[in-house]
């Protein structure tokens, strides 16, 4: 057993302990167990990544480390194994998952301290880490699918952690089912992939693309189906509607699952299967479109949100849109880097938001906050650091990764100038909503009903500070990702020289715009012009939910409930009705009248005689 094989099982182990002894553990013990599970994983992944560097430094080949545990099942001749594979891409992922995960665990320990089901919560979190690690380490797509479903289930459990609120349960169910649609598409993609390549091992598939690539039609379908999986998990158009609702979960959950790790699984999947996507440029283009549209729509929606977490959720969608756009444009390294940095700063944002919410007695409406800069200065500064990274303020980690993505768009064969403009516009909107949030939340007067009670537990603050550091410096962490990805050779056309300065400048312009628009309203308890229908429209996520509800959910429910008593059963009832009707008809024969009986004798005789004659 090496560290690689053990890696996902540390959190699993701690999960088991926590779930079995759940109520019997006190806070300290549970915290130690939960943190040590993830912490051991983190240590192991640091160790592993070190080794990986050592290997990759010594040789040029982009070989990863593979550990096989057992054969899961056979698909014909192909063995589906439970095996883990570590290469720079998964190395980034496990580092993010365990590292950020660990920090969030720490925060969560403080955040959820009062909850009576604390250890169950930590158990779910640990289980999530385990599933996520399996997802990113999976050597084959079936195992990846296991992790994929596992994180979905954990997400369900954690969103609905406070299950007694009906709204939370609904949100959890929605999240699960919407992502499940994507999962199903992913599964179909796997079936098609297996049909074409006769294997589901990722490395084998990728290796095959060099020797005997997929036919373009197959690649088109497979890439499309995998994209379907990715948009489901990563909350991209058109399966994005679950993510804002998923904010019903405890804030650390939002930070861990719905910002840092799980939602980026789709990005990971597409990056992982880059070999397949290269065979289907159309779909790469579609990926770019998906990303760009999502980032715009999510940004617009974020502009109108009143709930601090929903703003962040839309922002997450938007940022993942950037990653998708990057992948679609062939900027894989940048996209994955953005994934990593996004994990840092978005986790930071969510956690600081969590700290605010905790202090504000679970008040999440930004119009009932305000003036927090004075009352919670440390938290506010940390939050602004996160925001800075989010809008790619120069010098932050977000700047590094986002600029890298935007920089490659203009020339990309699968993207192009249009996408560049969309990305820039997205960046502009990002700044706008970010600073709307900042101004309304931190400036002006405090407008909440209850007095603030800032928590000062060290577990609350230490992770925040560390994340803040990462949010600033995380962009410079070396990743070695170039080894993994096939470089997309860009055409030689020169991109205009003003691109870069516009990209950097526009977000800063947006800050000014936001100042002009929103700062005066920093004292408002209502979003003033917000009574307009446009505002409502964008607050409701541009009507996607309503459309789906009217077109899909309602008809389905109605149809199902309509047929609740099973129309087919009517057939059976028809038969039995028939029998009983004939029974009562036949009973008329048995009238008890002797003369009629004699007549039946005559009738019978006549019938028989007729039968003879014919």
């Amino acid at each position, binding site marked *: 057993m090496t560290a690689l094989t053990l890696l996902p099982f540390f959190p699993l182990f701690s999960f088991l302990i926590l*779930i079995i002894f*759940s109520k019997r553990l006190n806070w300290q013990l549970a915290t130690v167990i939960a943190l040590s599970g993830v912490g051991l994983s983190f240590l192991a992944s640091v160790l592993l990544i070190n080794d990986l560097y050592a290997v990759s430094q010594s040789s040029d080949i982009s070989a990863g480390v593979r550990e096989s545990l*057992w*054969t*899961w*099942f*056979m*698909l*014909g*001749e192909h063995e589906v194994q*439970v095996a883990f594979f570590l290469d720079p891409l998964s190395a980034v992922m496990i580092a993010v998952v365990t590292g950020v995960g660990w920090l969030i665990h720490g925060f969560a320990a403080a955040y959820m301290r009062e909850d009576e*089901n604390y250890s*169950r919560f930590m158990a779910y979190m640990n289980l999530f880490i385990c599933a996520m690690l399996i997802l990113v380490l999976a050597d084959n797509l*079936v195992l990846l*699918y*296991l992790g994929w*479903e*596992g994180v979905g*289930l954990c997400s*369900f*459990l954690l969103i*609905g952690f406070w*299950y*007694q609120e*009906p709204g939370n*349960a609904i949100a*959890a*169910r929605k999240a*699960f*089912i919407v992502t*499940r*649609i994507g*999962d*199903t598409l992913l*599964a*179909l993609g*796997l*079936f*098609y992939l*297996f*049909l074409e390549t006769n294997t589901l091992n990722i490395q084998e598939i990728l290796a095959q693309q060099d020797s005997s690539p997929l036919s373009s039609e197959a690649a088109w379908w497979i890439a499309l189906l995998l994209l379907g999986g990715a948009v489901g998990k990563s909350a991209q158009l058109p399966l994005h509607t679950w993510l804002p609702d998923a904010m019903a979960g405890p804030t650390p959950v939002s930070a861990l699952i719905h910002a840092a790790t799980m939602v980026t699984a789709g990005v990971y999947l597409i990056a992982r299967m880059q070999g397949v996507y290269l065979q289907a440029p159309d779909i790469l283009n579609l990926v770019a479109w998906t990303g760009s549209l999502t980032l715009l729509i999510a940004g617009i929606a974020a502009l109108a949100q009143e709930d601090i977490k929903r703003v962040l959720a839309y922002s997450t969608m938007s940022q993942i849109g950037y990653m998708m756009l990057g992948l679609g444009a062939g900027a894989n390294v940048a996209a994955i880097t953005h994934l990593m940095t996004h994990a840092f700063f978005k986790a930071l944002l969510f956690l600081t938001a969590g700290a605010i919410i905790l202090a504000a007695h679970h008040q999440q409406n930004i119009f009932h906050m305000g003036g927090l800069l004075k009352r919670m200065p440390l938290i506010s500064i940390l939050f602004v650091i996160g925001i800075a990274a989010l809008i790619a303020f120069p010098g932050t980690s977000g700047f590094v990764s986002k600029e890298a993505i935007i920089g490659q768009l203009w020339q990309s064969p699968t993207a192009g100038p249009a996408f560049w403009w969309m990305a820039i516009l997205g960046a502009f909107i990002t700044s706008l909503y970010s600073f709307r949030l900042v101004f309304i939340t931190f400036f002006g007067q405090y407008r909440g009903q209850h007095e603030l009670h800032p928590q000062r537990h060290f577990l609350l603050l230490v992770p925040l500070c560390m994340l803040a550091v990462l949010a600033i410096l995380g962009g410079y962490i070396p990743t070695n990702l170039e080894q993994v990805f096939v470089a997309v050779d860009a055409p030689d056309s020169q991109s205009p020289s003003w691109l870069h300065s516009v990209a950097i400048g526009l977000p800063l312009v947006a800050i000014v715009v936001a100042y002009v628009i929103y700062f005066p309203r920093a004292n408002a308890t209502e979003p003033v012009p917000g009574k307009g229908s446009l505002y409502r429209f964008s607050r409701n996520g541009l009507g996607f939910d309503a459309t789906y509800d009217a077109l899909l959910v309602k008809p*389905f*429910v109605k*149809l*199902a*409930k309509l*047929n*609740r008593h*099973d129309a*087919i*059963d009517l*057939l*059976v009832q028809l038969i039995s009705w028939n029998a009983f009707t004939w029974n009562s008809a036949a009973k008329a024969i048995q009238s008890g009248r002797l003369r009629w009986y004699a007549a039946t004798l005559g009738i019978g005789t006549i019938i028989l005689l007729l039968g003879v004659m014919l």
Partner: protein
Amino acid sequence: MILTNIIAILMLVALVSLIIGSKFSRSLPYLAAGSVVLCFFLLARFASNNHDIFHQAMPLLSVPWITSLGIDYATFIDSLSFILVALTLILALVCILVSVNEIQHHHNFYYFNLLTALAGIIGVFAAADLFLFFFFWEVMLLPMTALIAIWGHENRRYAAIKFFIFTQVSSLLMLVAIIIMAFIHQQQFGEISFNYFDWQRLNLSMPLQYWLMLGFFIAFAVKLPSFPFHTWLPDAHTQAPTAGSVLLAGVLLKTGAYGLMRFVLPLFEQATVEFAPIAIALGVISIIYGAVMAFAQSDFKRLVAYSSISHMGFVTLALFSFSSIAYHGAIVTIVAHGLSSAALFSMAGILYQRLHTRELSKMGGLFASAPRMGGMLLVFVAAAFGMPGLLNFVGEFMTLTGTFASHPVATVLAATAMIGSAIYGMYLFQGSFQGKPHAGVQIADLLAHEWLLCGLLFALLLYLGLFPQSLLMHFEAIYPAANITVTGGKL
């Protein structure tokens, strides 16, 4: 001898419990459980002694029975039978465990029925003579019907009659087909025979073969149950006592699948190929229809019952796609569904004992008072909607992978059930255990014996889900009827 011994032991214990049981009703569960465990032990010993021979059918006992018609009492065993018999015995234990507190009256007759039903089911899996097969096929019905009719819920008589008439009428069709086969054997080989192995030599002309196949298929489709023959199942499952539901869903439905695998596919190769499009369509409709209907239900057990229809649709789909992967998938699905639906029905029974209702609208928020039960329910629901790591996923995945090659459209349609199952699964779990608890609803968490049965089922689902090869390694890698050329796909 081994299967005969098991049947004999079960019958004997059944009789004993009937006769002396009225005085010792407390100890009856122990007696029954003891006999089941003994049988399981015998089976395990037999399996370990004869490890290598399961690939081929291994004839066991054969004694002349009805000489004038060439009917023998003949049994045999192969991997398929073995797995199903083992599954039956495991679920038998589950049945006994769920019955401990539930059955309040006439214990002796109850355990008599339970054990004879088990004996009948094992007989079905053991029979090598088609007459014997039919005999057991019907014998298992009787005690099952009695279980529903006596210990069932409010609408039990309707359900029992419906169940019985459905299966009986359809099986008469099969009986006709069986007799015709025997006569054909007489025509071709001079002597009348009901022996399965003799029949494999038969040379059947096409339209005739098709009709015969249909006779068998309808009987098995009713048992399976496949759309549109499914309507007995929701009623029977809902009204049966918990053990009855467990037995019905866990094993009785599997006899239909077993029949398809054992008789329909190998004996009527040409006809099945010709029939495959219809069967696949029925399978897909069952899958989707079952899932949609499950969502529409508000009765816990009815919901699970419809989900069974959906799951067994996968078996039909798998078997008629003639792909070895899908065939293995069907085997896995059979076992998986046996365990998971048994588990869900047990949960329903456990809940019913505490709440005296099966209505989801009257549950809700139970997680607060019974978190362990909720956890277990979640696991079983997860199994039902195909959570990877649990056995059902492997079955579904293999089925769909195998089917995709030859029937992509059907596979895509069937895959929508993965969404559907998530919908009804969530609906079930959240409806019962999440949400606001009803005022004053406090239920006791799992008791020791309930823990035992839930744990047993969960452990099996998990173990087999992670190591499904331990099931599948006993099966040949190729599909039994792989020599048929199937158009439009590679295996």
